[in-house]
């Protein structure tokens, strides 16, 4: 009799457990946005997507890529969300507010320090102890003004996924030019040499598959 009740309890547990979500590894993301695109529509869309997709207990950081060497001053905001949904919601609002209020410092000389920003982002993501780490770059890496990475000094990027978003006003910015593709290949090789994963996204709808929400 008791075993039958136990079996029925188990069946009920399995029935209800079937309604629950599968386990998800803790995630952390860092957005590196070109200062020139900070207020662009793709940047807003990417940020909005991440704000709605990120879950309590996960981390999100945003930094602005200005001219010159990357430093702490370029960090807009970085937050590890609380595990309680209500507090996490407040933190998301704070994050959005900080982003909206941010004004990039005027620096007219130099170039975009993508490598430095990546170094910073990877280090920051490492501190979160997240199992899945994402770095998103909203900058045109195919531009000639951006220096190519130094192959001799690869970054340690194990478990890190670097995603280059090459969307500008809804259209692919990287023209199918041989040089631009070559430069992107160089970045890919550099990231993969460091143990990371490289991906180029031309369509923002793909973000839902890369960084799924709830």
């Amino acid at each position, binding site marked *: *009799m*008791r075993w*039958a*009740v136990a079996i*029925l*309890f188990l069946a*009920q*547990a399995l*029935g*209800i*457990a079937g*309604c*629950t*979500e*599968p*386990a*998800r590894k*803790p995630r952390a993301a860092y957005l590196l946005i070109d200062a020139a695109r900070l207020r662009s529509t793709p940047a*807003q869309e990417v940020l*909005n997507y991440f*704000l*709605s997709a990120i*879950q*309590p*207990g*996960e981390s999100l950081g945003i930094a602005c890529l200005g001219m010159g060497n990357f430093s702490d001053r370029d960090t807009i905001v970085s937050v590890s969300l609380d*595990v*309680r*949904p*209500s507090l*996490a*919601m407040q933190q*998301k*609002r704070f994050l*959005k507010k900080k982003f909206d209020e941010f004004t990039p410092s005027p620096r007219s000389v130099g170039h975009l320090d993508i490598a430095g920003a990546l170094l910073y982002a990877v280090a920051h993501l490492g501190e979160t102890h997240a199992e899945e780490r994402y770095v998103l770059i909203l900058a045109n890496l195919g531009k000639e003004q951006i220096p190519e990475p130094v192959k001799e000094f690869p970054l340690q990027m194990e478990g890190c996924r670097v995603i280059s978003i090459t969307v500008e006003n809804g259209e692919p910015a990287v023209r199918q030019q041989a040089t631009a593709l070559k430069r992107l290949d160089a970045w890919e090789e550099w990231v993969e040499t460091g143990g990371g994963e490289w991906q180029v996204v031309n369509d923002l709808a793909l973000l839902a598959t890369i960084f799924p929400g709830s």
Partner: protein
Amino acid sequence: MSHRDLFIIWPGSPLLSVLLWIGVAVAFLYLARFPAHRAIISFSRMIYGALRLASRSTLLMERKVAARTREVMINAGVEERERALEREFQRIADTATSDLSGYPALQQSLVEQSRKIDEEYRNSTLLPPPPPGWVRAVEVLAKLPAEGDALVAPILTHIHKTVESQYQTAMTDYNRAVSERQAILKKIMPYWRKVSEILDEMGNRIKRLEERAKLVDISMAEYQEIRSQSDQAVRALTASSLTRFFTAAAFLFIALGGAVLNFHLIALPMSEMVGGSSYIGSFRSSSVAALVIIFVEFAMGLCLMEFLGITRLFPSLGQLDDKMRRRLATAAFLILTILAGVEASLAYVGEQLAGELQFFQQSLANNQGTQPVRTWIPVTGQMVIALVLPFALTFGAIPLESLVKTGRSVLGITAAAALRWAAFSLRALGHLFLHLGRLGVQFYDLLIVPPLWVEGLVRYRCRRAEGFLEEQVPQ
């Protein structure tokens, strides 16, 4: 030299070689005919025997399972009827206690009414004073001739008048006395009515007891039938088990739906209590916590039903004394109420969170966002559902008990039916192999038709020659 060339008997003519090979093969098959027949028949008989054995074993197993199921069903039926009888006797005891406890008072009332009726009747039987004896004298005087004596006539007239006056007075008294008797008899009427009501009430109570007694008789007859283990009783129990099993399963399915709804109501807000990012195994902690709450509620519901004596899943709980059971039932009910309250609060938090999330999504979409308009209807609805569902799930214990109790019988019936079909299939398969063996023998002979034909011809001729000789001998 290739492998194909090995089979060429007649170089340059493959067709002839093939025909020669066929001839060789037919000759070989003809020579090996009887051993081959025996081999085919033996093989088919072996498979037939094995399958028949398996079929018999399966049938034996089916009989054992059926006997065991029958035993289980009879035991369950006996237990159930005993329980029904016990309840019926309890009801009779309650009826006797509640109805017949007032019997002495009724009897007292009846005696009192009888006494009053008797008294009043006696009062009514007091006769009015009889008419005086001189009535006859008056009649005699009235018959005397009045015109005989002038002196006597006035006297007689006077006497007559006096007597008539007395007579009128007497009659008036008599009529009054009769009226008084009638009035007294009229006063007895309510007492009679009261007596009639009391007797009717007593009759109704006795009738109710009789009805209960009839139910007990029916239950007792069923009980005796089950105890006698008759086929009719087993058939009735089988049908009853199947019906109750499927009904209970349907009810439990509904209860499971309720549990799932309950889970969805509290799973999200539970993350406010235990966090929304931790996992236990492959499940979110908040989901596991919500699941645990639902399980605790269901367990409390089961215990409550057990302590109230509605279900009897755990005999050890039923053996507790009544006082302890009442206490434990109260405790279970309190825990259930607290959990229901917690669920209602969680439902409120969940609605708040959903509103916040909606507002945030809107603010992301249009970059400013407006405060969501919140109405009390969904919040109240969710809270009421969260409050009521734990108590509603408590009643799931009743179909659960039914499912558990009939499950064993249904399982046995299903297993017996499956075994019966398996036995039948095995036997049929065995026969199929046996006939296939016979068919194989016939097919074998079909392959060696030419030598068989020759053999038949030779035998025919031999027999004919022998017959000819036999015919010659008598001559």
